[in-house]
């Protein structure tokens, strides 16, 4: 037995709930576009929580200090790169709007500044990023000031080692040391950052950890912890722990599954419905088709079919991990609409000889083509449908991992796609006007 089909209607359907799909839904909700958001969990839980714009120049190993200047270079060197096709003012506006939204709901971010921030990776190396969560902001500051600092990790926690972090940083930061503690009230065995983060939402747990941290701080006034300071209200948990310890505390991202990613997902899954978005979480869309009345989307959950009717669709299904692209023996496919995929001529050309080749691999630049209105191109090089838009790393001509630009591409292309969808759907009250 299955239930009767459940039907939803919206002006805009967003397919995919990674960073691009979530950002698109934020922008659409702010523009008074009624929106339905669907998609599987995707890769958000694997992210650091940092919002990168451009951390490396494409095709080089040089780090980018000023991403806005680097974008100018990108426009010259790689005009087909998705970020090269978006005005810097729009990219900045997109970051500002996105971080304002998540900030309002409990995860404050540093504003998009003129320069990249030099932030800590889980291994204790440094990377360039544009915006960091407020819970992590003291880390880059401590790195530059070289204040006396203790990096703390937890018994049973895999994927984050204070000793490793310290080993990488000690050369430039002599006043740093590593300590390992037991997380209060946790049974012995493997401990997960997610579990600690949720336990930190409980005031009594915070008090007990504060006592432990005061015990290991010694003369240091700064403590670095793996990202585990709360899941639902990290800013509050962070502030409370600083108050209880009298210490400055910062989080360092961990290996997946990472708390900052799960935080963003859970925050947006609650904030978006409150902003009027219809959320159909954790299920992949099986079919999208267009007819005279608009788009029809079909998906299934354990209870049966779900149908969505919408006037326009944003495709934000990601790459291989999330199923937006599929690798087959005879080539790379876009499975949902069978959009043409720009890709190397043959499978032999997917990778270069050396896996660590600094130029990257041609496969990673594969993706779909879009026009200036964010519309995916069909087989004849024309938009497949005027009502279909695309956002995120499914778009070709970028290698987001190598260029440290994943969030930048997701947020900026989502902004652009929503603007294009809005032009199609018709004018609205300005963002911020009463709903």
């Amino acid at each position, binding site marked *: 037995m299955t239930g009767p089909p*459940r039907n939803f209607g919206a002006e805009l359907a967003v397919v995919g709930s990674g960073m691009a799909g979530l950002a698109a839904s934020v922008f659409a909700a702010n523009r008074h576009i009624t929106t339905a958001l669907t998609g599987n969990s995707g890769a958000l*839980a694997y992210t650091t929580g940092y919002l990168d714009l451009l951390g490396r120049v494409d095709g080089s190993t040089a780090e980018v200090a000023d991403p806005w200047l680097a974008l100018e270079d990108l426009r010259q060197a790689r005009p087909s790169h998705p970020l090269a096709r978006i005005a810097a003012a729009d990219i900045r506006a997109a970051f500002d709007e996105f971080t304002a939204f998540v900030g309002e709901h409990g995860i404050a971010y540093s504003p998009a500044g003129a320069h990249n921030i030099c932030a800590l990776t889980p291994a204790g190396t440094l990377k360039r990023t544009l915006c960091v969560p407020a819970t992590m902001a003291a880390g880059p500051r401590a790195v530059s000031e070289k204040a006396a600092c203790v990096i703390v990790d937890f018994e049973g926690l895999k994927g984050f080692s204070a000793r490793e972090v310290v080993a990488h940083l000690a050369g430039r930061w002599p006043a740093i040391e590593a300590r390992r503690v037991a997380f209060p009230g946790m049974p012995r065995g493997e401990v*997960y950052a997610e579990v600690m983060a*949720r336990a930190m939402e*409980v005031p009594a747990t915070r008090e007990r950890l504060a006592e432990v941290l005061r015990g290991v701080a010694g003369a240091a006034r700064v403590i670095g912890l793996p990202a585990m300071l709360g899941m*639902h209200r990290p800013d509050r948990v962070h502030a409370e722990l600083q108050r209880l310890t009298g210490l400055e505390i910062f989080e360092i991202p961990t290996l997946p*599954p990472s708390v900052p990613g799960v935080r963003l997902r859970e925050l947006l899954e609650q904030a978006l419905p409150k902003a009027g978005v219809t959320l159909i979480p*954790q299920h992949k869309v099986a079919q999208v088709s267009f007819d005279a009345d608009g788009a029809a989307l079909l998906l299934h959950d354990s209870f049966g079919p779900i149908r969505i009717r919408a006037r326009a669709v944003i495709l934000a299904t990601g790459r291989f991990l999330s199923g937006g692209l599929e690798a087959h023996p005879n080539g790379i496919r876009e499975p949902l609409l069978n959009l043409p995929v720009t890709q190397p001529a043959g499978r032999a050309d997917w990778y270069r000889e050396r896996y660590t080749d600094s130029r990257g691999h041609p496969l990673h630049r594969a993706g779909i083509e879009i026009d200036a209105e964010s519309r995916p191109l069909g087989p004849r090089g024309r938009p497949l449908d005027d009502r279909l838009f695309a956002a995120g790393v499914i778009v070709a001509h970028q290698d987001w991992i190598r260029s440290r630009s994943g969030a930048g591409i997701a947020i900026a292309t989502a902004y652009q796609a929503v603007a294009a969808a809005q032009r199609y759907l018709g004018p609205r009250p300005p963002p911020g006007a009463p709903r």
Partner: protein
Amino acid sequence: MAQTTIPTLHFKEAALELLPPGANFDACLSCGLCSSGCPASGLENMDPRKFIRMALLGMDEELSNTHWVWCCTLCKRCEYVCPMKIDVSKLVFLARGNWPKDRQPAGIVRSCALTQRGASTSAMGMPPDDFVLVVEDVLEEVRATQPAFRHLQAPVDKPGAHFFVNQNSREPMSEPEEMVPLWKILDLVGADWTYASSGWAAENFCMFTGDEEAWRAVIKTRVEAVNALGCQVWLNTECGHSYYSMWQGVERFGLDAHFRMESLITWYARWIREGKLPINARWNRQGIKFTVQDPCMIVRKSFGDPIAEDMRFVVRTLVGEDNFVDMQPNRSANYCCGGGGGSLQAGKREQRLVYGKRKFDQITATGAAYVLTPCHNCHSQIEDVGHHYGGHYGVVHFWTLMCLSLGILGENERRYLGADLRALID
């Protein structure tokens, strides 16, 4: 006496048969989202990721023998958060069924045996005549002692009634007066309903033994009972796994059900929206805070978020918008309380309490004085972890609080109310 040996299952082969075309356990990225989000991780030195990795490595003997399969509550949160949608619970279910009966947890086996014993399908073994008698006795007492309800009805075996209402055995067996609030609500909304002497019970521990034949037999009795009375809707009351075992059972075993299977939560919401159930939060003048537990069996495993939304609509109406504090995470992403999958009868109390610590933390973080949950197993487990970890919250049924709101809660129907709530109506 020598113990019966647990046969060795070939998990990888079995997985291939269980999975839909195109899906496979090889797709596991080993990312650990499943284990990170599973309250059973670490119990019996096992977790969902380890289970999958061991299956892929052919460690069949270890997996066939691990007691973890009785600590996992089959809540499917691992599948929910998995980017590859790998369902570990399918393998756990298989492993459970592979254990010889004499090695399975005696409590679950006994409950299943009792369920199969008579036409009631009651896991507490209550015979049909006893059930009917208890209903009649309780009804008679209500009519005699509560003048406003001197015409209250609790029909049994009424042919053609719209709703076939199921009943968890715990009430007629242990706390019969707890049946009354629901009768009053059904009376108030003018529902055309009936109990039945056959197939009335809600619980189905046979599903938790992994014994498909026993599961099927229980559901078949219930389906036949509803068909025989010609009811349009089998209405699942405040019991989680009964819903899942029924609709999954009907689908899995291809049973011929001539009725719809619906949840009381959906109907609470509908009756409120239609103005038939005029509950409100005016009674909550002290601003007592409530949170709600999403039973896995009716939210994540069955209806998904829409029923979680209905439940929140009901709770907000009932306790006041400002007095509802959601747990984190919630809805389909909520954690199992640790009482699911038969674990309350599995005899592993220590593990069950470790499992429940996650739920305890969630509840404590809300600061709520009460947890509302429409599931008996959630109810028992959340009470138990509260006592164990020194919590200060109570657990209440929806029907109790609704009748409190309506001013019709009888004096002996207040078992789950704390002093603060009692003070409001005494």
